């Protein structure tokens, strides 16, 4: 391969990626506009969203609480120990508010839900495409963005926000236990440090960030699933592409939220 054809193939690849990204973001913005429009919501949308919340959040709840307690306690125990070693005890509140509430809670929740529900939604959509069920919906005038995308996206957004809050509460409570063990800190001192460090905007950032995570970890699997081929062999390819792009989206949102926070 000579230099010119190499440059051509790189250019063609880059253009292909750009077109794909352009289409994805265009469709995402169309779905987002529907999300904000009350006329998109039918009693059926609410029914499907509630069912999806059950599958996404309620069924996961037991496992999620165990993971939050185990992982959160390990993380907070180790970190508080380091904080004690380097003599930064007064910054416990800032650490918990800045790292646990704003960063760790949304990302851990998002990863768990993306692995569990994101992949399931991606496969479900790709199988529906391969079985021509999406064509059947279209034939009956049922808009797949309204019927399939909207309720699932709303449900996962709600689930990520609520489970992130739960994760933050559990890890903050673990912090109370570990600060009592490691620093011999009283309940009042701990809550005062937390209250001083947490600002109202932190809740807004956490909710917006979790909702953005929820939107993309559902939209991307739905998008790639619905664009799969008609052969069953296209299903794993669609799931693979969807989940890789979900991972990229999580990193991009995390970076953007950090930039927004420190600007």
């Amino acid at each position, binding site marked *: 391969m000579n230099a010119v054809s190499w440059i051509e193939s790189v250019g063609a690849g880059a253009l292909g990626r750009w077109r794909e990204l352009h289409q994805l973001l265009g469709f995402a913005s169309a779905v987002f506009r529907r999300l904000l429009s009350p006329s998109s919501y039918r*009693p*059926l949308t609410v029914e499907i969203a509630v069912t999806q919340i059950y599958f996404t959040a309620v069924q996961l709840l037991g496992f999620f609480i165990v993971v939050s307690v185990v992982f959160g306690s390990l993380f907070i125990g180790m970190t508080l120990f380091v904080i004690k070693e380097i003599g930064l005890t007064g910054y416990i509140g800032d650490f918990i508010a800045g790292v646990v509430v704003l960063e760790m809670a949304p990302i851990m929740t998002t990863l768990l839900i993306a692995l569990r529900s994101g992949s399931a939604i991606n496969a*479900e959509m790709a199988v529906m495409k391969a*079985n*021509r*069920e999406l*064509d059947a*919906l279209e034939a*009956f005038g049922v808009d797949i963005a309204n*019927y399939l995308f909207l309720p699932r996206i709303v449900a996962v957004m709600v689930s990520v926000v609520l489970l992130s809050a739960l994760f933050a509460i559990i890890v903050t409570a673990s912090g109370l236990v570990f600060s009592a063990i490691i620093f011999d800190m009283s309940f009042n001192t701990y809550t005062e440090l937390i209250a001083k460090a947490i600002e109202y905007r932190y809740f807004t950032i956490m909710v917006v960030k979790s909702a953005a995570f929820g939107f993309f970890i559902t939209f991307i699997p739905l998008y790639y699933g619905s664009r799969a081929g008609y052969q069953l062999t296209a299903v794993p390819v669609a799931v693979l592409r969807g989940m890789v792009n979900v991972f990229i989206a999580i990193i991009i949102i995390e970076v953007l939220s950090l930039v927004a926070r420190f600007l």
Partner: protein
Amino acid sequence: MMELATAEKGRYAPVSADIPLLSNLSVFRNIALIRQYHERLGREESHRLTTEALERFGLCGIAEKRPYDLSERDLFLVKLLRAAQRKEALIVIDRPFVQIAGLRSFEWIRKHLELLDFPGIDAIILDYEWNGERYGSDGA
């Protein structure tokens, strides 16, 4: 079929081997979905109308079954009921003898079509010419 789908977009209601039921929904929900979506029906109203529709064909016993558990005949009838849920539906039955391999004449389908006396409903059957005699003396 494609021309019909485009020309009669608002009422086109196919019954075809190429237009499957949704495999992750029960028979009941497959039928209910059309009115719930287009007429924005609530759960109770939709439940009442879907039960009524299933009763017409005596299919209440299979309401909670999934499409892959159905016989060819039941699958056909459920697709027919789903199609009839569209407002002023133009039911387009695509090659019925392909959908129900053991069916010898059109009489059985005709009998069920007569039970669908919803207002404004029409039905068209698309089939190969050589199947003409299976539709009886009046054709189809």
